[in-house]
């Protein structure tokens, strides 16, 4: 379910963090579901358990999972809707278009052309 890339510029704990978030967003990990234990995950990936702990702590502090005593790490974040994914991009696109003096119709036309 998880894979890591060695020799990447991204530390392993960050890679695990990102993958958990992605698994949630694509629906593979649902709300209230349990993450594998630190030991399980460390064994599966063959990495130092401290690295996994670090990833889980980050997930916890970002409000993505919750540590339940005696149970483990539970997913508390819901998957983002596709629209939420695109929103930041669209926002910056609209801001750029306004700055360049494009009208809404012009922007719409450009999108329409590219859509095909």
């Amino acid at each position, binding site marked *: 379910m998880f894979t890591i890339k060695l020799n990447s*510029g991204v530390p392993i704990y*960050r890679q695990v963090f990102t993958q958990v978030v992605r698994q949630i967003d694509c629906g593979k990990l649902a709300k209230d579901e349990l993450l594998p234990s630190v030991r399980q995950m460390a064994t599966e990936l063959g990495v130092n358990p401290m690295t996994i702990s670090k990833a889980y702590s980050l997930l916890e502090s970002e409000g993505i999972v919750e540590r339940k005593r005696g149970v483990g790490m539970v997913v508390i974040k819901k998957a983002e809707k596709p629209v939420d994914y695109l929103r930041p991009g669209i926002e910056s696109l609209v801001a750029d278009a306004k700055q360049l003096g494009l009208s809404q119709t012009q922007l719409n036309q450009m999108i329409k052309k590219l859509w095909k």
Partner: protein
Amino acid sequence: MKNSSLKAKIPLSLVNASKGFDGEKVLQDVSLDLEPGTITGLLGRNAAGKTTLIRTAVGLLKPDSGQANLFGYSAWDCPASIRRRVGYVSQKFDDMLWLYVKDAISLVGSFYETWDHQLVERFRDEWDVPLDKKIQTLSQGQQQKVGILLAIGHRPDLLVLDEPVASLDPVARQNFLRTLLMLNDEIGQTILFSSHITTDIERIAADIAILHEGKITYHGGVDKLKESVQCLFLRADCSLDNIRDVTGVISSRVDGNRLQVWVRDWDEEKSAQLGEQIFEAHGSSTPVLTEAVGLEELFMGMTS
């Protein structure tokens, strides 16, 4: 009193240790403390002094100056009770070659009250090490495995390994790395192992010590190192004078038409500072491109 009990908790400690052979200094003022329960990878190029550091740290070599301590005692002449807490695997296993594997295991096992037969048998079986063969008839990789079995059987609190995976094939290597993780997890063992394979270190070590030309140039978290070092790409005609004033420059090299510079603790402020310097020198501003780098490239940058 309090100070000495604190020292006793540090499994391995080098304090300004220097060591040379025939007038040539190999280790220069090396200081290194291992936190109990950590796995530390000692990374260095060939001839950086890794083996000398390890042999000095475990008491096989006497430092010319400075100290090498194991659990607060001088490594060179520490009591047997301390030595029992240490396991050491040399780069090439060449002990007891005339013995059968089973005899070597029971011989070494008889020295220790704490010998863990189950643990040894488990890994011997997993690694397919034959009991009924003389050690000298085994391949180098198999001999290495015997050396590892003999070093972990007494469940030492500190395990020091000199290039333990160098002669193992990829499958055995992965297995062995998992073993180290397991020993660290189950026994809380402190582990120091040297290697020049950055991915092995990245995988299992939380801490890394980089040895370059006899000096420790970095000791700390692997993640921290990766997150603090950035590689900058500048135009090759930007002379090194431009970056001289920027603090934290580790090294640089010209690669085709660009200048690659590795900088520690890179931030916005440094970026702006460098941009200004380049503008002053060349009258044009070039964007300073940065990139996060993998451990291998980082290592090459820090030791070239």
